[in-house]
């Protein structure tokens, strides 16, 4: 696996999955691709299909309706596929943890390997998170 991981770390292709967020982490993720941050220079690229993805960027507390879809999409991904929880929502549930419509345990729906806290995290923090993941993969 480590042989594979080392190659994977060179160009991480990410798939963006919004699981009932407030849109803010999502626009910051898109912001990463635009000229100011331009993560494509690190080989990080946003892809349209989860089958091409090495990393899933998950944003939002997962609600009851979206949970089966999230599970299905993760199952469709070619493994190894790492899940990065962007924002406070996947990490702690933010202010929605008291809601009747969010799943109680997000780890049952999708395993999350790395959390980037912040509401929303700054693009620099997101880059650092993914770079840390690449460091772990390289080790």
């Amino acid at each position, binding site marked *: 696996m480590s042989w594979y991981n080392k190659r994977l770390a060179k160009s991480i292709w990410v798939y963006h*999955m*919004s*699981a*009932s*967020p*407030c*849109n*803010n*982490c*999502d*626009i*910051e993720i*898109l*912001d990463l691709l*635009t*000229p*100011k941050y331009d993560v494509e220079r690190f080989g990080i690229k946003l892809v*349209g*299909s*989860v089958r091409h993805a090495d990393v899933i960027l998950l944003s939002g*507390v997962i*609600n009851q*309706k*979206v949970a089966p*879809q999230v599970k299905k*999409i993760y199952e469709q991904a070619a493994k190894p596929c790492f899940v990065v929880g962007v924002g406070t929502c996947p990490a702690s549930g*933010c*202010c*929605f943890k*008291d*809601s*009747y*419509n*969010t799943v109680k345990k997000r780890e049952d729906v999708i395993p999350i390997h790395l959390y980037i806290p912040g*509401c*929303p995290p*700054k693009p620099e923090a997101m880059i650092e998170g993914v770079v840390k993941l690449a460091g772990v993969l390289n080790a």
Partner: protein
Amino acid sequence: MDKNVIPVGPYHPLLEEAEYFTLQVDGETVVDIDLEIGWMHRGHEFISESKTFTQSLYLVERICGICSTSHPLAAVHAMEDVDNIEIPLRARYIRTLVGELERIHSHLLWLGLAGHFIGYDTLWMWAWKYREPVLQMFEIISGNRNHYGMMRVGGVAKDVDPDKIKSLLDIMDEIEKKIQMIAKAANDDPVLKSRLKGVGVLTKKDAVDFCAVGPTARASGVSVDVRKDEPTDAYDLVDFKIIVTENGDVFDKTVVRLLETFESIKICKQCLEKLKTVNGGIRNNVKEISAGEGIGRYEAPRGEVFHYVRTDGTNRPVRHKVRAPSYVNIPTFKASCKGIPVADALITLAAVDPCYCCTERSIKIRDKNNEPYQLDLMKLSREKTEQIRRQMK
């Protein structure tokens, strides 16, 4: 003849949020469209009733990350409406400044995404590149790029540092120049003209019938704007125009948004100039809100956002109702998408700048047999009476 159905979503490469459209097509032409929402429902109205007023503002800010001033601003208007709380002049200018900056960032965001939807990524990169200074201004004013946390009942949370006003004005000038360049380029662009002109027309009659608000209505010739119709904050003290165009196609919606951006820049500059001279506090200390009800309206980048708050004299709202602009704009798809090719459907869907996070305030529950869960109130009431009667025996 059988109609074919094209499902779009809930996870689609182009869609930023999860939503599910079913396009009924006859050959290449869209005959009917249906939409299933609820993928983003988090139960804000329910949670808000268990939070204090200030915590509730934190919560409504997270209804939507793009209109994260509009919702708290409408909510504070509603809470202030209960007791007719006055706010200081300086706070009024700061509220208007933050609200208008948000409009600039939201319209540029839309312009970029519209470019992305028609496969014109150059426009996307451009628009988002020049959106960056706006976020930088937000960082200077509020300390965060998004989710500013500026609104409080009775004023604003943070003051604009007088030393920084000059640098803010400089950034504003810079943005104006760049957006003028984009607007000129977008206006002359043959790609945009051929893809957007005459596409997804929403007639004036349809706009009125569907009660469309915001740029969607204004592009169809309906002059509706809460900022002029019912001015709050400093909108009656600044000078600006409402942009109205007549054609109602996607190109006109682009034009309306771009021209509105210039109006917003004008308002922001006036506010910043005023903040140099207007002194005084930024917040009246509000100890409590008495029992009553209040409504708050604000012109969000997408249209009118409406909040209703009912209080009972405690420190939390008893009922907090939210109606977002997309709630009335999204049904206009029924009118604008009919009869257009499938290739144009997605940009037409995106043209109203729909925000599903804002819209989804309720869910439909289904029972085990997959039937909608309904309650007979009369039956429930009788059962309760029976129950009490049994207890009293």
